[in-house]
């Protein structure tokens, strides 16, 4: 399992990052002592580092240079600073990428995955495939496949996105705005219909697997996954 080191002095942000990263099957460690980051770095030997710029004692640029003296692992900066100079500094000091606060967790995850792929070979055996599961319903978001009791079906990108949100949010409601945001594509912009159409398609795909009425509409809020099938013990 790949290990990610989080160097961020705001404990809540660090905590959130840790939860997100662990959800995607990586190991995450948060630095507690900012005086000797290198000691912990040597103990942990992480595969990737998330680094804030404003830290107590020394700043992130300094620590990045220190890390570079002994490791070539990817270093991603996460900072509230948005100036062009800050980004240049970050990359000049040995960083690999720059993410600005407030960040979207999906973007952070996507960047982490892309850098890990690049650094340790494409789809290295170490990396376990991401699976989202609820009571026997399994979604493979990287393959666009949905499995249920031995049968399986292929999904489009949009259908997979919707199911990913539903499973991820289960048992809570997946918000309308969040779903639309996820479907938003840079080339073709979405509108209200895109969501309705795709929800219908998702329901049809679930029917193919023998699941009826599993996607429940919550008026004024969004959609919720309902376990409408009998759960096997």
């Amino acid at each position, binding site marked *: 399992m790949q290990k990610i080191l989080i160097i961020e002095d*705001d404990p*809540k*942000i660090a905590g*959130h990052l840790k939860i997100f990263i662990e959800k995607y099957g990586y190991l995450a460690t948060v630095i507690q002592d900012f005086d000797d980051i290198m000691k912990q770095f040597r103990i942990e030997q992480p595969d990737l580092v998330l680094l804030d710029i404003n830290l107590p004692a020394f700043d992130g640029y300094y620590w990045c240079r220190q890390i570079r003296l002994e490791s070539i692992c990817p270093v991603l900066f996460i900072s*509230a*600073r948005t100036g*062009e100079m800050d980004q240049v500094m970050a990359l000049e000091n040995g960083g690999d990428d720059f993410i600005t*606060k*407030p*960040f979207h*967790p999906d973007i952070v995850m996507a960047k982490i995955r892309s850098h890990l792929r690049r650094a340790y070979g494409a789809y290295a055996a170490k990396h376990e495939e991401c699976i989202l599961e609820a009571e026997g319903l399994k979604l493979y978001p990287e393959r666009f496949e949905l499995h249920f009791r031995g049968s399986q079906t292929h999904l489009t990108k949009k259908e997979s996105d919707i199911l990913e949100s539903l499973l991820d949010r289960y048992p*809570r*409601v*997946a*918000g*309308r*705005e*969040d779903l*639309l*945001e996820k479907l*938003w594509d*840079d080339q073709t*912009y*979405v*509108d*209200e219909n895109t969501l309705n159409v795709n929800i219908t398609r998702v329901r049809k795909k679930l029917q193919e697997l023998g699941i009826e009425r599993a996607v429940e509409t*919550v008026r*004024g*809020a*969004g959609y919720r996954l309902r376990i409408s099938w009998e759960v096997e013990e």
Partner: protein
Amino acid sequence: MKLFFREHMFLIAVQVIQFMVVFLTIWLSGFHNVSAIFYAIFLQVFFFVCYLAYHFFSRRNYYEKLEEGIERLEDALENTDRAPIAKQLDSILKRQYQLYATELREAEERQEEHLEFVDRWVHQMKTPLSVIELTAQNLDEPDSSSIREETERMKSGLNTVLYMARLRTIEHDFHIKPVRLSNIVRDVNTENKRFYIRSAVYPKLVEQQAEMVVESDEKWLFFILEQLIQNAVKYSAGKSNQIEIHLYNRGSSAVLEVRDEGTGIPVEDQRRVFHKFYTGSNGRKYRESTGMGLYLVKEVSERLGHKVEMESVVGEGSIFRIVFSPTQNLTPM
């Protein structure tokens, strides 16, 4: 000259009286040689006029300066004349100049300090904002979306503050380079995804010519476009579900146009929408109008050398255009 005479009027009057008194005294004492008396008086007048002439010419600049005042601050530092009174005037002016300069510098330093404070504070606020946003994502709907709507408003408010603070030193902040317009439109749209979705208004990009490139500052152009788009969406919500962004050439100028079918701006407000803090009747009807958006658009565009045009009809919608001059248009023809 005028001032000089006014200044010496009394002296001249006293002298004239003196001549008469001297003449009368000599005359009444019984000495009646007119030509000798007049000769003496003539000598007196001669010396007096000499004195006045010397006095005037040695202090000509001094009188000039007193009469005309100074136009520019630097004039206060020029040497006037060598006469003691002129030197004294110069030293007072110089001293005053120094005092003002110090005060000005202090004021500038204070302002600089304040701007830096604002800048840091805004950046500091981003971390708690991130925490609120991330925490809200774990809540159930509709609270989750509702909280994130508010954090987004705070985020855009903070950004405006940053840009506002940078506006003063905008010339140092420019990085002019070729910018591809369709990219910037896409970036702005992606950045404002949730705002579009929430308002149920969606963008449509119409490129009359693909690959349009202009010379501009990417960051500030992004800001301008974001303001225009946010306005278009805000005043379209509930009236229409689409705004159009057009890219085209007009003559040899490149034009970026944001077109909405929203409320429109009343004629009496149109002249003033670009004024600072002017919100107009629409601003009062819709919430969160600061009256800053279009003012900043205008200011920044002017400094970037872009023109802003506006057309609007109440009830039919508005069109805002950013016109890039022919020299800024790098689109291959």
